[in-house]
């Protein structure tokens, strides 16, 4: 009996080994070719995640600026409805906080915020950008003589005012110091648009309407730069 070469167990084993090596090489080759796609997908996922996190505060329809302030006319202060289970104001409202809002747009000039504190209700003001960042907050104990007088300007407007003051003979404000008028807080906003929140607190539920009345002095006005 003669044994052919192909029937030899030794040769068949070598061939099986060779086929499995080819299969493994193909797998490795496929895996190597997939690496750029996997990395691309990961990169895309990270980019999408970061973009959504950065864009949500301004694009989300329920974000406070879009939901509460974007539709307000410039210069108008709106008092939010009293918080109750059916109210459509901000989420998680304090049921004892009477709240008013106004929006500002510094593209044509500065914004002037005024409020008179009544002393009977804790009162606060916060200035926020469209993405919700709070760039200033203050309470009635920060307000000299019970009066808030805040002017919001852009950096460019602040620089122009400082130059104008210097050329007018006044000393230039030191770095970090504002060129604000007496009794005025000049606030530099990094963005053109934003909104202001006024809060007056009621000591108990039946005091809410009186706290709301304390918001009647809250004013927002847009001011054109003087020629």
């Amino acid at each position: 009996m003669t044994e052919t070469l192909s029937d030899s167990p030794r040769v068949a084993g070598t061939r099986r080994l060779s086929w499995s090596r080819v299969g493994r090489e193909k797998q490795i080759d496929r895996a190597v070719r997939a690496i750029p796609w996997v990395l691309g997908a990961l990169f895309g996922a990270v980019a999408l995640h970061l973009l959504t996190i950065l864009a949500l505060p301004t694009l989300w329809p329920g974000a406070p600026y879009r939901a509460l302030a974007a539709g307000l006319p410039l210069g108008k202060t709106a008092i939010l409805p009293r918080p109750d289970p059916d109210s459509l104001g901000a989420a998680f409202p304090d049921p004892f906080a009477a709240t008013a809002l106004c929006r500002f747009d510094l593209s044509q000039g500065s914004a002037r915020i005024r409020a008179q504190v009544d002393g009977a209700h804790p009162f606060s003001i916060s200035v926020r950008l469209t993405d919700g960042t709070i760039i200033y907050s203050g309470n009635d104990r920060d307000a000299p003589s019970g009066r808030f007088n805040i002017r919001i300007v852009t950096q460019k407007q602040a620089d122009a005012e400082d130059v104008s003051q210097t050329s007018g003979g006044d000393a230039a404000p030191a770095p970090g110091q504002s060129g604000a008028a007496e009794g005025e807080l000049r606030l530099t906003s990094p963005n053109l648009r934003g909104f202001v929140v006024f809060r007056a607190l009621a000591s108990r539920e039946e005091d809410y309407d009186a706290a709301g009345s304390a918001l009647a002095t809250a004013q927002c006005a847009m001011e054109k730069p003087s020629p």
Partner: protein
Amino acid sequence: MSGLKALPLATIAALALGSAATLFSLQGGPGFGAVRLGAWTSWPQVGDSDIDPYARASLAVDGALPLGSREGVAFIATTDDEGAPLDARCDYRISGAAPAARFWTLGAYDVDGHLRPNLAHRHGLTSAALLRDSDGDFVVEAARGARPGNWLPLGEKSRFILILRAYQAKTSAIGDAYQGMSVPSIARGNCS
């Protein structure tokens, strides 16, 4: 993997992973820097311009107007002192020392941010209207049914959260702690 086959797969994977990462990061409160005091958690950085982008995104999606740092500090509790989720089928005793602040309020909310409807139309308590003992300490009974004294009605829906707002708080966050700030404990009582 040929380019034509791989491109849609990679795109779908990127969209799914990116969206999942965003949804995951918006769970569990606004961003980093949480300060915990007992069952209460606060995020002090949300009241300043150095708020992180995750906190900004989380607050925008919630639709909340957080307190500015000079307005006060808000503490949120989603569990009792033992770590069990707050459930309106149970009674809770909120007691202890008051936060060091000019004025504070305590409110109960649905998890979606609405005040909880209840027959008493009472949605919170304030430090000014609270009944206290001779030491100035207080006990608030949070329950569905009416209670004598400081009663905080919980309404019908089971899951709820508590928010304690300390206005003009006499403290500031130092790292992951508040100096000189005390908050009340939340102890669960009977459950129906």
